[in-house]
């Protein structure tokens, strides 16, 4: 099947039912997107499908064919830059394993909502588990990124 990932058309050899996550990780060897639970409960596998955050662990790759897929490696929007810069400046990650998914979710939020409130953040981010407990730092980084986007 042919997929459009990070602006590039790629041909992949995978069975129809292969989750997008494993095509990204195993066939394309892009390892920034993580496996966490396989049942869309933790958000570590979050990627964008036409700009919307989706759980790639339960999305068959065939269902994503012909659509715009963005992974952490392909983020380059205004919002993404602000988010990743805030994440780095505030030293958000601890183990960091969930952070690709957190950043994909946060970027999608800020793309749609330039000034999210705390409850907007709760609604957008509560599907993403962080076992290190960096939630407050994630919240601060989203607010910081939002401020940066206003100034820019």
């Amino acid at each position: 099947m042919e997929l459009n990932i990070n602006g590039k058309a790629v041909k992949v050899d995978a069975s129809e039912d292969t989750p997008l996550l494993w095509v990204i990780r195993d066939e394309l060897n892009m390892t920034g997107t993580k496996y966490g639970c396989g049942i869309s409960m933790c958000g570590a596998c979050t990627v964008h499908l036409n700009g919307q955050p989706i759980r790639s662990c339960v999305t068959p790759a065939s269902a994503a064919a012909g659509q715009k897929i963005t992974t952490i490696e392909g983020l380059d929007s205004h919002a993404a830059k602000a988010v990743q810069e805030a994440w780095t400046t505030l030293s958000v990650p601890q183990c960091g394993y969930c952070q690709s998914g957190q950043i994909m979710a946060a970027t999608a939020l800020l793309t749609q909502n330039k000034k999210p409130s705390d409850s907007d953040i709760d609604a957008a981010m509560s599907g993403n588990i962080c076992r290190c407990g960096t939630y407050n730092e994630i919240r601060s980084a989203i607010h910081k990124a939002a401020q940066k986007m206003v100034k820019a």
Partner: protein
Amino acid sequence: MTSRREFLVQTGAMTGGLIIGFNLPAAKAKAAEPPPAANAKVYPPNAFIQIDKDSKVNIVINKCEMGQGVFTSMSQLIAEELDCDWSRVVPVAAPVDPIYNHTMFSTIQMTGGSTALNSSYDQYRQIGATARAMLIQAASAKWQVEASSLKTDKGFVTHPSKGRIAYGELAEDANKLEMPKNVPVKDAKNFKLIGKSMPRLDAHDKSYGKAVYGIDVRLPDMVRVMVVRPPMFGATLKSFDASEAKKTAGVLDVIRFGNKVAVVAKNSWAARKGRDAVKAEWNTSGREKISSASIIEGFKKDAATPNLHPKANPDAIKETAADAKALVAEYEFPYLAHASMEPLNCTVNFDGKTAELWSGHQMPTVDRDTAAKIFGLDPSKVKVNSVYAGGSFGRRASKDSDYVREACEIAKVLKKPMQLLFSREDDMKGGYYRPMAYHHARISTDAKGYPTAWHHKIVSPSIMAGGAFAAMMSGGADPTVTEGVTESAYELGKQQVDLQMPTNDIPTLWFRSVGHTHTGFVMETLIDELAHRAKANPIDFRRPMLKKSSRHLAVLDLLKKNTPLGQGKKPKKGHAYGVAIHESFNTVVGQVVEASLVDGVPRVHHVWAAAHCGRVVNPEGARTQIAGGIAFGMSMSLYGNIEIENGEVTTTNFDKYQVVRMNEMPKIDVFFVPSEDKPTGLGEPGVPPLGAALANAIFSLTGKRVRKLPIALEVAKQQQAST
């Protein structure tokens, strides 16, 4: 292939004591080593510091970076003394070599027990100071000036008239010098980096999807392996039918090894599908009858006949038994899974003569030696690569290298690059849990409500027994089961502690703050109960009982000063405060929790934490360790429960094994007691007080004590019972 150890011996770098690494001159490198000429700027690595010609400073970290921030905080220790340019510091994970052994657990290289900064504080500063002295000596020789006339600043040696010279230009000369001994370290008042919130050095790679975890390791022609494991602990494999599995596209092979079946495939998804298609028959021999409920009932019976007495004072038994007014309480704690975000995995390349491993390793020496034994190789032929661990919380400090062992057993058959993957369910069902525990306490008090006699029984399986750490058990008692009770800082009067460590098929393991996960809860809810009986402010009540520990008192002072409970403020309607203070890993942490019940579910709104952990090397890193400990403590005490029914674990993924999420995260304020003491633990000590402080707040809300965990389940049951 020359092993790293041989290499260091041959080059004269290993002469005992601390090793300062500089660029090893190319001429000394053996021909078999990668030729330095391939990259003119970087020479073969040496032990702890490598400075390249460009003045980039690689700092070798002998602890596993699993989120706790050692890559940054330990780099600060060396960089402080070395006086190098922080922006040129690159932390590098250490290979396995005795040079990198833990300074306290000296036979192995290991990360655990919240010891990273405590065990490295003197060592890493000494290494940095020695390296700096050698660079100064090299500049002194080059410029023909007195060493005493030289200073250092951000990666340069400076002289009033000669100007400055970069470390990179001196490194090669410095490396030829004999290592000076007893170089003094800085006076703390001159610290520039220690005590500063240096941003995490791994934050960038972890924010751009570039950090490589075990599961991200990619080798040419690497196969993926998933394993069919017994559905019940202790069950044995009778037979299996792999015909469907073998028909799955991408499946390459199905191999029985011992009691398990490995499915080898081209990719992870094929391995998963093939694994799930294997039909296995198991001999479960009565294990269907085992459940969480049956295990705890067994523990309660065991409590009647304790066979170990880590603390004995028969008068405590007599006094409490005769006291009709004694406070009597029993507690039940479930099994807990670490549930790190990165499921377990291990990548192995075994070619018949040498082996190479990749994983997040908390005990790489143990993992290497296990691998060597399985392959029948000398340990020098096994190379261990420690990569970032996507969380661990103790799980990757496996006492018997369980998942590394499994990977190596399969790799031995395959003899090609392979990656063993655990599904989330495999990880959560696989045991190596924080053991279940039962406590029973009977306490007599004086007229003011302070304990005069304390009889405490604990029933919980051992963690250390049968593993590499069994030697640390004294008189058969595992200190990780009783820690926090037997060494309580409180004056408890006469104390008797009884212990029973039942055995079963469920493997146990250290789990962030280990025994303190339950002992802290028990001690701090009991003390709260005594304070409530005495109608005293729970912070003030604790003070006389802790009068011999200035560190506890200093933490109480901060809680008194900085929290609404300490200031005697009334909580909002429907809210309540609870407090707990507990020492673990030589650090004292106190927490005040503000909680309420929202539709009957406990909700934590705000946590104020105070800690005495000696000198704080990186304040922001320290703060986030405490905050992370609070989140972990919330998940553990509110929801954490590995449920076993009809012999099988039923809580196998995040849908049933609930953890705290963004919308539940409380506001957190952290205060540190200013201290000049050597740093003590921080990775774990933030965890134990949280559950107790929350349970104490819930008592204020409902009038009912929570003595059975997880809290949310018990509160729901209590409310059901009262309606």
